[in-house]
Each structure stands twice: as structure tokens, then as C-alpha cells.
């Protein structure tokens, strides 16, 4: 069975030697290239910003290839250590962290500022997967409880910074591990009920004013067209006025004339929608779908449970980023400040994501060696 479904990457000796999964690489490169084209327009044709982004891409790709060289076993061995380190750093941030934009997210290491929550994006699913995979599947209720606890502690620490968006995404990446591990549907329904009951508690006790405002604005952006509703209104105008074919590259009036806020970061999808229209949106979604599909295929073909769970969780988390970002700029979801993965301008999150894809490539290409053991 394994022989019948030989991976192209395995056939390609040269790439296999570098532990590169060719379909995933092609998907990612297509996305990055398309992303650069959009970014050039979204930065107002800023060569300096393009240069910075290309350098980041280079670093991120290098990180991906570097991570891919470690076997899943190695990664599994390091999972708990990484998780513990991340936890310590989160506590350090709360104690000595650098305050920027009203939130305490950064840790100043002297030579660079660092956001420990980025580590946890990788460490939480890895640690939960390590724990769950060390027992038989489906996990018992007792194991699930431990798993939830492993998600909850970093989530609450990050929520305290406060960074609700990131904390929820990290919680979700851990929960995906539990879901893929076969958590029973009955329990899932129970948790869903619990979460809906928890929502008012969150609204009144956990959320900050600006977060509540975002939700209120999301529910009815036109009530405050010049204030917090401005972003979403201008974004929808940009998307809607793109029509089927779009206004053409560099021709988007909403983005080029800067009516669109955060056009090169969180709202870059609106630039794409305006300049390339529905056609461009479909192309982008197709690329994302291909990468996600490939990620799930890699997960389902992985030969040990840790690899499966980590690969699936990373893939689904990647999808959640895509969905949340597109949902927020098109008015389906409140504005939570999630960049469009691998397209938005910005460094840290891109490196983290590519590290995750490095893990996927490792899972994809280290199979034979595992089988040979």
C-alpha cells in the first residue's frame, strides 16, 4: 500500500535529500510569489518594504528547510522542552515585558525584541500531541483533561498580556490536536455548550473595552463610520468595488489612495480583492486550499501519531488564520488583527508559520527512514 502511494518527493532523490515535500513547496512558493505581487501594490510600490519582505521570506524559507532536516522523532523529543521554555518566557513577559501599543507582548533579549507567544504557536500543539500520542488513541477523558490544561495555561497567560486573538488561536491549535486524536463527538458538543455559556463571562470579565468595541463595530460597522467602523467599511468598499475582474494591478483606488487602512498588513486581502476581483480571490483560495489539502494528506500519511497530530494541527491552524483574516476584512468576523498568512507584510508570524511547514516537510520526508527502523 505504501509503495502504491509513493510520494513524488520521495521519488525525487535530490529534494528528498533536503527533506523537501515538492507539492507543499510548490504551493507555498506560488502563494509567496502571488503575495509579493499583491504586497508590491499594497505598500504603494515601496521598494524598501519589498526588499525587507524578500529578506524575511529568505529567512523564513531557510528556517523551514532547517526545521525539515530534523526527524519527527527529534522534534517530538524537543516538544516538551520547547513548551516549558515558552511558558517561562510568557511568565517573564508578564513580569519584565516590554510594553508596546498598550499591550505587554514583547520580551527584550538585549539584541532583539521577541514575542514568546510565537513560540507557543508551535509549542502548544507539539506538546499536546506529544502527550496524547504517548497513549493509545482515542484519548481517554483523563488525557483530554490534561491536554486541555496544557492549552489553557499558555492561553490564559497570553490573554493577560492582553492578546486575546493570539491566545484564542493558540488554544485552538491545541484543541485541534485533541479533535484529530479522536475526542468523542459527545464531548465536543458538551464543550460547545460550555463555550457558549462562557461567552457572557468573557464579554463582561475578560474582554477589554477595545475588544468589546471591535465586536460591537463588527456587528454594525455603519454606526460609527468615521471611528472604529471606518476600517471595515472601507475594506468592504474595496472588496465590493473590485467586482469580478478587479480594477487591475496597482489600479485599486481604495488601496492606492489609502482609503483602505492597514492595507499592507491585516487588510492586504482587500487590496487583492479590489485589484484582482473575484477571479483573484478564487485563485488565492485555491492556492490556500491546495496547501491545506496537502497538509492534511501529509498528516494522514504520517507513520506515527505525534506526526499525524502535529501536522494536522499546524495545517488546520494555518487554515484558521486564513479564514479569520478573510472573514474579518470581508465583514464576516470582528476585526481581531490577524494577518493573512504568508501574504501580509511582517516578520515574526511568517517565520513561525514557515517553521511549522518545516515540521510538515519533516513529517512528509522522514517516513521511509521511520519505516526502515
Amino acid at each position: 500500500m505504501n509503495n502504491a502511494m509513493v510520494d513524488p518527493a520521495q521519488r525525487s532523490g535530490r529534494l528528498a535529500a533536503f527533506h523537501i515535500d515538492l507539492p507543499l513547496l510548490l504551493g507555498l512558493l506560488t502563494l509567496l510569489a502571488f503575495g509579493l505581487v499583491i504586497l508590491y501594490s499594497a505598500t504603494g510600490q515601496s521598494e524598501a518594504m519589498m526588499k525587507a519582505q524578500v529578506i524575511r521570506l529568505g529567512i523564513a524559507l531557510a528556517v523551514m528547510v532547517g526545521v525539515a532536516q530534523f526527524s519527527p522523532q527529534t522534534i517530538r523529543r524537543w516538544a516538551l522542552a520547547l513548551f516549558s521554555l515558552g511558558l517561562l518566557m510568557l511568565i517573564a513577559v508578564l513580569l519584565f515585558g516590554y510594553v508596546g501599543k498598550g499591550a505587554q507582548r514583547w520580551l527584550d533579549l538585549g539584541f532583539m525584541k521577541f514575542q514568546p507567544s510565537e513560540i507557543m504557536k508551535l509549542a502548544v500543539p507539539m506538546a499536546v500531541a506529544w502527550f496524547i500520542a504517548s497513549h493509545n488513541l482515542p484519548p481517554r477523558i483523563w488525557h483530554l483533561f490534561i491536554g486541555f490544561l496544557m492549552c489553557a495555561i499558555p492561553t490564559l497567560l497570553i490573554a493577560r498580556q492582553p492578546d486575546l486573538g493570539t491566545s484564542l488561536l493558540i488554544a485552538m491549535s491545541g484543541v485541534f490536536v485533541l479533535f484529530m486524536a479522536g475526542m468523542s463527538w459527545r464531548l465536543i458538543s458538551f464543550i460547545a455548550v460550555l463555550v457558549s455559556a462562557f461567552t457572557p463571562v468573557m464579554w463582561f470579565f475578560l474582554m477589554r473595552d477595545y475588544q468589546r468595541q471591535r465586536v460591537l463595530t463588527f456587528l454594525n460597522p455603519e454606526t460609527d463610520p468615521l471611528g472604529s467602523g471606518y476600517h471595515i467599511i472601507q475594506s468592504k468598499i474595496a472588496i465590493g468595488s473590485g467586482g469580478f475582474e478587479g480594477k487591475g494591478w496597482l489600479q485599486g483606488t481604495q488601496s492606492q489612495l489609502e482609503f483602505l487602512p492597514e492595507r499592507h498588513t491585516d487588510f492586504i486581502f482587500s487590496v487583492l480583492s479590489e485589484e484582482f476581483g473575484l477571479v483573484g480571490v478564487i485563485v488565492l483560495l485555491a492556492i490556500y486550499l491546495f496547501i491545506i489539502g496537502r497538509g492534511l494528506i501529509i498528516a494522514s500519511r504520517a507513520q506515527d501519531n505525534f506526526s499525524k497530530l502535529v501536522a494536522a494541527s499546524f495545517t488546520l491552524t494555518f487554515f484558521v488564520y486564513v479564514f479569520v483574516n478573510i472573514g474579518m476584512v470581508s465583514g464576516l468576523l470582528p476585526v481581531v488583527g490577524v494577518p493573512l498568512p504568508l501574504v501580509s507584510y511582517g516578520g515574526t508570524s511568517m517565520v513561525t508559520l514557515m517553521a511549522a511547514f518545516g515540521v510538515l516537510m519533516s513529517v512528509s520526508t522522514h517516513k521511509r527512514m521511520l519505516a526502515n527502523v
Partner: protein
Amino acid sequence: MLKKRVAMQDIAAETRLFNSRALVAMLIVCTLFSIILVNMYNLQIRSYQDYQIRSEGNRIKVLPLAPNRGLISDRNGILLAENRPVFSLELVPEQIDNINTTLSKLAQLIEISEEQQQDFLQQVKQQRRFNSIALKERLDEQEVAIISVNLHRFPGVTVEARLSRHYPFGDLFTHALGYIGKINTDDLRRLDEQDRLANYAASREIGKLGLERYYEEQLHGTMGYQEVEVNNRGRVIRVLRSVPARSGKNIRLSLDVGLQLTAQQTLNQSRGAIVAMDPRDGAVLAFYSNPSYDPNLFVHGISSSNYNALLHSPDRPLINRVTQGIYPPASTIKPHLALLGLETNTVQPDTRIWDPGFFTLPNSDHRFRDWKRSGHGWVDVYSAVAESCDIYFYDLGIKLGIDRISDYMRQFGFGERTGIDIHEEASANMPSRGWKRARFNQPWYPGDTVPLSIGQSFWTATPVQLALSTAVIVNKGMMPTPHMAAEFSSADSTELVNPGLKPALNVVDEENWRIIADTMVRTVATLKGTAHTAFRNSSYSSGGKTGTAQIVAIAQDAKYDADALDERQRDNAMYIGYAPAENPTVVFAVVVENTGGGGSVGAPIGRQLLDYYFSAGVNSDE
């Protein structure tokens, strides 16, 4: 072995479980992507039109362009209202490194007050950084020169020119031209009611008075606009479309600068009014009210001290005496009454009346006196007009009765606005039985008719009405509409103003009109004529009528003594006239307040006017 078998079973079940979960995950992914696609379809296809419009609304702004106001010139093309560039010192904050340094350096070059600097800094805070902000407005020529020479030292500093209304003749044409001023809320409301507000989006000023107000629509022109693309901060990125403004029409008036100057000089320091027009078409040749004031004060907003000085001046310069000055017409209306007497056969040309110096009504011993205490002796219609005999007209007035007088004089235009092309016009008063009943709730007494017959008591008229009634006499019943605008011209068309003549009076016998014109010529030409002294040795023929209006009633047996009276209670001097005697080309009215008699003050002014009129050939080309 056993342990390994169990593990193997686990792996198969686990793989099945995982794959089913992966499938569920993939289904969820596809479902959510579908939701995104449906949302995109709604935004980009179904609501495309809506968002397209909103996107255009974001980026396209329409900037209005103000039209240049039409120019106004006199009959010979001499500019009376023009648009002059005024210069202002302006700064663009974003192009200046240090605004405070620049300000202090500029203040070393020209005088910039602390207040101007504070105002400017306030504006800098309020305005967008790429907008040009005025530091000092209305620079004089020297300041413009100093700044221009040093401009290279100040990046971001410019001298901007914009057009501003200017009246080069100052106070000479104020009551005719009026002036423009800043648009206020009343103007905005009126424009809105007339549906013309949109055309004023870029305009700062509007006609406030006189011709500037009356012909606002023609003078203003049509606004142009630029469709520009702007960014989110309102900075203009590029011009998409430009529709230039169409300038207002230029107006050539029938007024004559020379005649106007003569009018001003002859009135000298006296309060009064002079109006002259061509009886053939109503074209106004002179229109002057004294004292006048400088309309340029109003263009940039008059200071309250200046305004109060004008408003509270005892000479009341703001009153337009030509059209709003309400005066008893006095003896100037004697030709009109004589005409009514002839047309109604109440008197014949040769009917003679004995003037003993006073007149009494039957059953009354109240003596209505003649201005000549000794009386004129026997008078007929010719001598009655020429020598301005009061007794003849007391008698005629009583014979005619108030109803006929009132009806007939109304047809001459008394008691009605003449329709001259400014809005500041009074109708004055032509009394009647009905009027007196309504005004005083009293019947009309014969004693009211007596002073009325010499243009006193309730009868009032404006100078322009007097001139117009003179035109009706020389036109034998045909009435023109007085108008100062003669021609509107724009780049592609010229339009002459000619309202034409309308029959005002029913003519019974044309000979009567010739006789009346003759009585007025005799006023000037015969030795006993009241205007004879004034017109002695004139090189042209003319007709006229003097008038001396009493401002205060003189007691029964008292004598009018100008020196004993307060200046403001002295008589008004009146004079109406026309020239030449045959086929007249000009009629005019002169009123001089509180100076004395029509013959001694009014007629000499008429003489000077006509002297200039004929020597300069004011409208001889027509």
C-alpha cells in the same frame, strides 16, 4: 508478541479514526471556504454597483471654481467696477522645516502683527499640512516686491493673487453701482430659495446694493469645477476633468463719467440728488446722490467704526436720494397740472386769472399766499408756469378737484416706482381721497387741494419720478422705463437693453402738449421766467421748471427768512428740465436740500449740467 499485536490493532483503528477526522476537517475547511466565496460573491458581484459608487465617492471630489465677476463700465467703456488682483502671503506648512523660524524671518522683511502670526499658527493646527494658509492678506505693492525678491530663501512660501472687486471712481457711482460684500446667511437663504445656491459654491461675494445687486445673476457668471482624485487625507492626486467657470457678463451702462462728475461738483457740499436720462429710451445718463461714500470700504468688510460713522452721519450718506429721497415736488409739477387743465378744458390757453398775491376759498378767510407777496397780476397758462404763479394753480386745483389730479398725476408715474434697475427705490406718495381716509381716517377737504396744487402738503416725489414725468411731457404721453444698464456682453454675445416706451397718458389734443412744453421753454427763455437768470446766454435751447419746497409751514403772516431758520428747515431747491427745446435728448431733475430757491440754486445746477452735456456731446452719437 502479544503486546506488539495489540499495538498493531491499535494502529489500524487509530489510522481509521484519524483519517475520518481528517476528512471531517477537510469538509469543514471546504464549507468555510464556500462561505467566504458566497460572501465574496455577494460583495463583488451582487453589491458591485453599490460599492463601485461608494468607491468613486471616496476618491472623486468636485472642487468648485469661482467665475470672474462681470465688469461694469460707463457708456464710453470707462471701467467703473473692475476686478483687481490682491496679493496675500501664504505658507504651505508641510514644505517648511521650521515654521517659527520662517515666521520670524518674514517678520523682519515686512510688518506682520502678533495677531496675524497667532491667527496663522491657529490655522496651521486646524488645516491639513499640504494646504496653503494665508499669513498676511492684502499686501501693498512694496510688500509684494520685498517678498518676491526674497522668495528663493523661503521654500513653501508663496505670494498668491486673487481677484477682488474695485471701484476706481470711489464715491462717484456708489448709489448707482452699489457694491459687493461677503455672502451672509440671508444671502445664502435667498440664493437657496431661488435655486441658485449651487452656483455660489466657490464664490465669496455677492452684490449687496445697487446695480451690483440688481444684476447679480448676470454679473456673477457660472461656476466651473474640477473633478479631482483625492487620497484619504484629501490631498489632490490628479485632475480628472476640468470645466472652466464662465465669467459673468460685462455691463456697459448708459451713465457718463463726465456728466456724473459734473453732477458731483455742482452739488458740492450740499445734500441732494441729480438724475438725467434720455427721454427717448429711458437710458440714465447721470445718477448721483450727495453725500456719497467709498464703496470699496464694503468689499473687504467695513470696520464697525467706519460703518457707524456712515450710519449715524446727520447727512445720511447711505440714503440713495435719487430713488429713495422723498421730497415735496413743489412747483416743478405745475406744467403737469396745467396740462391737465388744458386737456380737461378746465382752462383755455388764453384763460386769464387775477393774482392779488393771495387766494381764499369760498366761505373762508384763510389766505393761501403766492410766493410773490405782491402778486403776479393777470396771468395765463404761459406766464403762470414760467413765472410759477401759485394763485393760478390754487384756482386750477380747486376747479380740477383731488380725484382728477390724483388720477392724472398717477399716470405721470407719481406714487409709483419707476422700475429703474436698482432695488432701492421708494414709491413716494400721490395722495387721494382714499389714501387720506386710510392714512388719517379723514375726508379730503378743499383746503387739502390748495397746497397740493403747488406740489406741497401730502404730495411727495423722488427725483427719478420727477425726471421721468418730464420725459412723459416731452414724449407727449409716452413713458420710458429708466435704466442704467445699456448693454450686456459676454465672450460670444452682446445684448442691448431697450425696455421701450409705453403709452402712459391718454392724449386729447397734441397741441396742449406743445403748449406745455412751450411754457417750460418760456421759464428758461423769457425775461420773467424763473430760470431765466440761470440760463442767460446758453448756447442751446431748453425747457425747465423751478421749484422751491417749504420744509416747515410758515405761519399765516410770517415771512420766510432763511437766515432765521435752522439749516435743515430751509427750503429745498428743485429743478426739472429738458433740452434741446425741439426733439429733446435729455431730461433731468435736480434736488438740493435746504439751500434755497429753485431759481437761485436748482436752475444754475441744471445750467451747468446742460453746459457739460452739450459741450461733451454726451449722447449725441445716438
